């Protein structure tokens, strides 16, 4: 096990710069998720850590050793690919033992490691099968098995759940997290799915256009997003955000006054943000017209119009409101977010 450290890491493809000086320290045993929209550079960063892409500038170190010029095979890492990348001509057993075989380990040790991993991942009945004879979820587990028999310093996951159906994805999420709690191996996990990031990570690095927008614990990002990008990216349904002007401690927006806290000065132009669950239908407050009601059982999502802007409301329990009906919304001032209108940075 080991820590990983990125120092001012830069990557260019031809003339296009895709990573603009990434610095990130991952401590021993930590589970860090790199999340961001496609094209943000998260997979490139992971592949540079894996040794599958050259490092244009800066340094990457594993366990204190700079690995810029170290071959993939000598970095002591294991990687799980989105396509699983199982060797099609090898059985599950041979797939899992392959890296040990390449290291000329004794057959007895390989058998024992593969057996242990197969037991952890419930793959024992499938050891003699070929990848084409397995379901998507089983292949995914073999890919993980191939990683854990290595007992590497770092696990790398590149969108490992993207090819699974929704139900299996939730189940595998839990399995990967349980596996990490059991093995405590340093893990870097790339995904575009913010729910995966929120549920699995010790810390999340939200990336956008080749930069880390914010690094922090999942709820830290949720409660105190550093800028508009993080505010909009983290959370589902997304935060309501609209333009406004600060006026004596509140924000004038969409023709009404929204309660706020924080140090914005009067007359400052801001972006006002409030999460759907921090707006409740109430007897008095901001007038709105219901557009759509989506009951989900334990909660109800209401889309309502304030002025011309659609606002999403997430309320506990159920609602009697119907489309066209006029309601009032009560925003919780303590949970309102203000961002500078020009820079998008949290105020």
């Amino acid at each position: 096990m080991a820590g990983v450290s990125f120092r001012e890491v830069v990557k260019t493809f031809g003339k296009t710069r895709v990573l603009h000086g990434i610095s990130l320290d991952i401590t021993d045993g930590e589970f860090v998720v790199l999340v961001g929209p496609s094209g943000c550079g998260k997979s490139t960063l992971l592949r540079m850590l894996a040794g599958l892409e050259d490092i244009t500038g800066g340094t990457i170190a594993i366990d204190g050793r700079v690995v810029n010029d170290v071959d993939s095979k000598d970095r002591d890492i294991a990687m799980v690919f989105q396509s699983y990348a199982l060797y099609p001509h090898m059985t599950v057993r041979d797939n899992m033992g392959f890296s040990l075989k390449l290291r000329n380990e004794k057959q007895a040790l390989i058998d024992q490691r593969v057996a242990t991993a197969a037991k952890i991942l419930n793959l024992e009945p499938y050891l003699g099968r070929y990848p084409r004879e397995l379901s998507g979820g089983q292949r995914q587990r073999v890919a993980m098995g191939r990683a854990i028999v290595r007992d590497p310093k770092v696990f790398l996951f590149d969108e490992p759940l993207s090819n699974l159906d929704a139900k299996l994805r939730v189940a595998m999420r839990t399995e990967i997290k349980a596996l990490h709690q059991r093995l405590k191996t340093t893990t870097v996990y790339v995904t575009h799915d913010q729910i995966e990031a929120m549920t699995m990570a010790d810390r999340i690095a939200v990336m956008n256009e080749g930069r880390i927008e914010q690094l922090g614990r999942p709820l830290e990002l949720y409660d105190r997003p550093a800028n508009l990008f993080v505010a909009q990216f983290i959370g589902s349904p997304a935060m309501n955000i609209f333009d406004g002007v600060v006026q004596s401690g509140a924000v004038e927006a969409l023709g009404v006054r929204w309660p706020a806290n924080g140090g914005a000065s009067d007359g400052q132009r801001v972006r006002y943000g409030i999460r759907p669950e921090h707006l409740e239908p109430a007897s008095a407050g901001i007038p709105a017209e219901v557009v759509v009601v989506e009951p989900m059982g334990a909660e109800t999502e209401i889309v309502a119009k304030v002025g011309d802007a659609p606002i999403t409301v997430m309320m506990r329990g159920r609602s009697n409101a119907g489309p066209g009906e006029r309601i009032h919304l009560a925003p919780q001032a303590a949970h309102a977010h203000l961002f500078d209108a020009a820079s998008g940075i949290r105020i």
Partner: protein
Amino acid sequence: MIAPYVLVFLVFVVYPVTYGLWLARHPQSYVTLFDDPVFFRTVVNTIVFLMVAVNVKFALALFLSGFFVHDRAWIRWLSVIFIIPWAVPAIPTIFSIRFMLNPEWGIINSVWFRLTALDGPNWLNDPTLGLTMAMVVHIWKALPFWTLILIAGRLAIPRELYEASSVDGATSWQKFKYVTWPSIRTLYLSSTILSMIWTLGDFNSVYLLTGGGPADLTHVLATLGIRYIRLDQVDQAMATIVVALPFVLPLVYFMMKRLSANE
């Protein structure tokens, strides 16, 4: 409506094959054939040609396909040039090679003489050298095609397999052994069989280069028939083709079996 297909089959397959077999029906043709000292030499030449030319060609194609799959602009340009021997017509190119190899006034021996002041080898008048040069011409002509086939096979291998094996600790040789070869093995073997069938029928490489000479010592089964036709012995020529069937039919059988097994 299968009548048109049946008609085509009758006209283009059943009739010529039956007529050929009819011409080759006389047992005396085979006695004459087996008594002809050129025949035994031809069978040996054919076996040598098949074993050496096909395997050397495929070993080279496998090696070169590994080079041409690299995604670089200059390699793509080079591959265009590399295709040329396959794309150009056989008769003028093989004739020009024949002229180049002429021991007295061919360009190769002229350069040889200028550099060493010695006479160059008697390229096409020595049976061993002549057959070797015919194999070289055959390989030169057919190599681009089979290299292309193996390039296509290599390109079908997912890149992630190579990346996974890099992370797993594989060297270049181990990547070839555990990823590339298992993935293209079937293609390689099927192509080898197909190429053997085609090589058995390769008339040009030998006939245009050596004409079967010197002294009919470089004939293969594909060219021996022509020798008899020129002697006005059509029955004899057909018998030669029938004698080649024990070589061809097992190959065709294996090929068809492989193709149906892959479906």
